[in-house]
């Protein structure tokens, strides 16, 4: 696997539905192709929904891993069309 250092990190822990998803989508839109977004999140529904939607929008999911308890770390490589 190539370099997976995130270009940008957003902390969505504690946020209510669907702010983590909306923040992720908005941030992805502002980023450039090839950059990596790290999303820290503890809301189970969005842990599954964010990768699903990012993938559908053409981005690449590099990693979805559990940090601790409900907290997950999602790494998304920006590939989608602007």
């Amino acid at each position, binding site marked *: 696997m190539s370099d997976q250092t995130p270009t940008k990190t957003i902390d969505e822990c504690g946020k209510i539905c669907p702010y983590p998803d909306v923040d992720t989508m908005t941030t992805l*839109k502002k980023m450039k192709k090839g950059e990596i977004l790290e999303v820290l999140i503890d809301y189970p529904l969005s842990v599954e929904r964010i990768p*699903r939607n990012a993938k559908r929008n053409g981005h690449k999911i590099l990693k979805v891993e559990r940090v601790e308890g409900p907290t997950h770390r999602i790494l998304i490589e920006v590939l989608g069309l602007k």
Partner: protein
Amino acid sequence: MITVVSGILVGALFGFSLQRGRFCMNSAFRDIIVGRDFNLVKAVGVALLVETLGFSIMAMTGVIKMAPPALMWGAEGVGGLLFGMGMVLAGGCASGITYRAGEGLVGAFSAIVGFSLFALTTSAGVLSPVANFLKTNTKISAADGSPLTLGNIFGINANVVGLVLSVVIIAVWVVLALRKRTEEEPGEKPKSIWEAIFKKGWSWPAAGIAVGLVGVLAFPLSAATGRNYPLGITAGWNNIWQTLFVPGTVMNWGGALIIGIVLGSLVGAAIAGELALRAPAPKVLVQAFIGGSLMGFGATVAGGCNVGHVLSGVPQLSIGSMFDTFMIIAGCWIMAYFLFIRPMNAAR
């Protein structure tokens, strides 16, 4: 005692299914326009089909007696719209905030406080004249005085309509689904049945079937305790607060159901390692409280929330519940547009 045990058991199954299936109607309806994700609305569709099939068979065989909510267009129009707007602010529907309280989401606690406060004052307190006015003055019933359903507006047996409709839709859906089996869920496949049930989030068909079966189970069990209705949330929360603070109130099936939902979700979240107290910023807690308040008022005016009307009234083919569902979706989309879609487009 049996009432409480029965309510808690059904509630626990409901809460566990909601938590594992991530089943929430706010997300289901809102995701159609925010993010264009259809997973949860498909789960809602499956649950409704399972219930419509189950209810009609049980009614035909005499296991249950249908109790469809009446059409009260003013009450369901206003109440449904406000409920739909409120759930977007609150970050969850009535069942959604209840199961998320079990997961430890403090935002959901805040929404429940607002929800209960306004549900109580609208059902029995200062706001009750508003609800009563809308309910009594906009009611439309069938010629024989019974609630309007997809059956009696056409002069046919509602149970037959339910049976035929659900079987046909299920058959068409299954055929279509088998034709294009390309959709691969992202993420790793679960390694065992234990992991699939207790560790991973359920797929939408599994979530829909589980929630639908809980609804089917709920109807006869609730009716056996004298409450002839399937699942519901609003009256249950009211009952809990009244049991705690009004002397002489006894916990009923609906109240026990709520306790079960919270417990079932808590257990499900704990096994999956998703249980933890977590709070949003204070501003969001206020937003969730306001959203919850709109939901409590709306649900009481309309005579039901997304569970009482959508999950329990629609499968009984109640026209009132279908209208309420329509208005909840309208309210949800209006609020989601201003809260999420406009800001997202502006960020382009």
